[in-house]
């Protein structure tokens, strides 16, 4: 069942309203869209949404983060929301000073690569939460003096950097590694669902309006069934995503249950978003293959997101959750 209530509809509408006046575009080379980010923080307080009020946040929870992540995904925003939300919540839980993060003035990010490679938003972040799931430890690394190489990315809406962490000062913080991992995977799944949903909407609208052979192309079974398959993928993945959100929002959820659900959601949503955004290009025909059309931006994001936060042991762990002996 959906974890969302009527109140979440309001939050969703607010984000969507702000975004509509400032719509999706590719980030230019490096850096996120700073103006947009300031508006998201100042007008909606998204950076501190789930940070407790005593620590300078709005005191909401995971479900609210999920709503915003879906909207960020829908609009395909070049925004560091995902990384800073996950990292900020981890830092807050560890009792760190997160006031500037909650205001969106400092950007935090999160990574699961011990070698500092491919850190999302690593080109713009001020502080890194470095998670070692196997060792169950979480460290915080100040990025001020860290040498970084901003990468060229397939995804034009989220940067990455290789960070040279060898000389960087690190400090362990007390927060359960598995929860940080689960939250990252779950909110990423939310972004993906948002993006997939939007692609399906625009593709459906295009197929309803584009006429060839004297009929809207969406009246042809080939196109109609392709769109129907996109819908099937979307709704099945959404079930896994909403389940993970509900479990992540419940502090009583056990570690393995949360791990299984968040890995399942990420795997399901990665596949669904990749397929849907790829098929979205096909539904649009030639026009969907042009630079000016948004279709390839979603596909780029889908492809890059599918390998974000992905530990190498996904197949192994998911098989174990299916009951396969190790």
């Amino acid at each position: 069942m959906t974890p969302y209530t009527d109140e979440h509809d309001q939050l969703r509408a607010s984000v969507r309203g702000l975004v509509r006046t400032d719509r999706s575009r590719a980030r230019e080379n490096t850096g996120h869209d700073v103006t947009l980010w300031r508006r998201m923080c100042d007008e909606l307080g998204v950076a501190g949404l789930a940070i407790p009020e005593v620590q300078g946040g709005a005191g909401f929870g995971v479900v609210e983060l999920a709503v915003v992540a879906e909207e960020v995904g829908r609009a395909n925003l070049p925004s560091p929301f995902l990384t800073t939300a996950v990292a900020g919540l981890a830092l807050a839980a560890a009792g760190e000073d997160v006031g500037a993060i909650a205001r969106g003035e400092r950007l935090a990010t999160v990574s699961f690569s011990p070698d500092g490679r491919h850190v999302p938003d690593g080109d713009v972040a001020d502080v890194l939460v470095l998670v070692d799931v196997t060792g169950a430890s979480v460290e915080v690394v100040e990025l001020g003096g860290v040498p970084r190489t901003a990468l060229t990315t397939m995804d034009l809406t989220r940067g990455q950097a290789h960070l040279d962490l060898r000389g960087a000062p690190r400090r362990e913080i007390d927060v359960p590694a598995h929860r940080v991992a689960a939250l990252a995977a779950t909110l990423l799944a939310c972004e993906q669902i948002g993006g997939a949903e939007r692609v399906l909407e625009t593709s459906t609208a295009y197929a309803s309006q584009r006429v060839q052979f004297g009929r809207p192309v969406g009246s042809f079974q080939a196109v109609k069934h392709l769109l129907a398959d996109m819908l099937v993928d979307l709704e099945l993945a959404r079930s896994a995503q909403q389940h993970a959100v509900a479990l992540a929002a419940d502090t009583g959820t056990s570690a393995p249950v949360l791990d299984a659900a968040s890995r399942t959601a990420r795997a399901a949503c990665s596949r669904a978003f990749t397929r849907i955004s790829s098929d979205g290009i096909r539904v649009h025909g030639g026009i969907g293959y042009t630079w000016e059309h948004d279709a390839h931006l979603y596909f780029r994001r889908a492809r890059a997101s599918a390998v974000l936060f992905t530990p190498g042991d996904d197949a192994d762990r998911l098989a174990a959750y299916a009951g396969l002996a190790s």
Partner: protein
Amino acid sequence: MTETLADFRRRVADFLAHHGCPAGAAPSRSRRPADHVAAARVHQRALADAGLAGITWPVEVGGLGLGPEYRQAFAEESAGFETFSAVFTIGLGMCGPVLLALGTADQRSRYLPPLLRADEVWCQLFSEPGAGSDLAGLTTTAVPDDDGGWRIRGQKVWTTYAHHSDRALLLARTDPGKAKHRGITMFVLDMTAPGVTVRPLRQATGDAEFNEVFLDDVRVGPDDVVGAVDEGWRAATLMLMNERVALADNPIGSPVTLDAVVALANRTGRTTDPVVRKAVADAYVAQQQAELFARRIAGEVRVGRDPGALASIGKLAAGRLATQVSALALEVAGPDAVAWDPADPDGGLWAYGELYAPSLSIAGGTEQIQRTVLGERVLGLPREPQADRDVPFRELRRG
């Protein structure tokens, strides 16, 4: 005063403690179908005797008159128990609600109490050899006789459990001069009436769950019309809506489950092969999605909402999952899956599953039909130009 939910739950738990059949303990639906149906009848009668049948049905027809939250509670309590839902999907899930909605007072009081007790099992005589995906193309005819009744001639097919059924809801064409979707009427049919011949139809698996039903001048009375004459398509639509609800509540899946395949892999030591681990992980993700989606829809249904066309997603997911899992089984079992020692009673399971899987993508509306339904009714895509809508039925091309 209405029984509290807590009291109701206690009564259900108590019933199941005495009469409940653990899932998997009943005679196999596919291999011992007659025994399965017999056990189902016994179980349903016990439910009725315990005052637990027809939870949301009106009291005057033998139901409990309770709200959908009681149905949800019953579903939760009976997790892990055999519900024989496949046997009763048509009668209790589809025919009953249609008679409740459209039946006369007489029909309701005459047919619903024995239906609820499984004293009478019902089937659905809709599909025909020439009218499968295109159900409204049916050609079975009902011609008025001199006594105000009707004479029915034609052939039905894919009738689940016809050979175990006492009654049926039947669609027949009463006016071929009207357009295809008009001129159809729904009737109650006594399966023991003269002229009704049931012939089991053997499937690719070797099972015979379906039947052909031949109707050779079968008489039905004037009181056997359900709803209005020539308005049967509306009744059929209501029936199919209830089918979606019933299947969303109790989805039918393949006998070869992912759990069974995983157990096989554990047994045969194929657990460390990375290719197998990856394929199992993929199947697990698919299975979780199908299950969580089914739960989402069932949640809606149990609080009384029609899942509408979204139910087609569940059906497609079930069919695709069965295909994926049975293919995985063949991968894991290797040559043993396709040739086995006759002394091994479970040797044929994987081949059975592989042969069973396609039926989930055909029965109750092919994959193609489901995708059209989703495209048009959920996404709102325009329909195809249709040649067969506004022409008298008798002038249409058929085959």
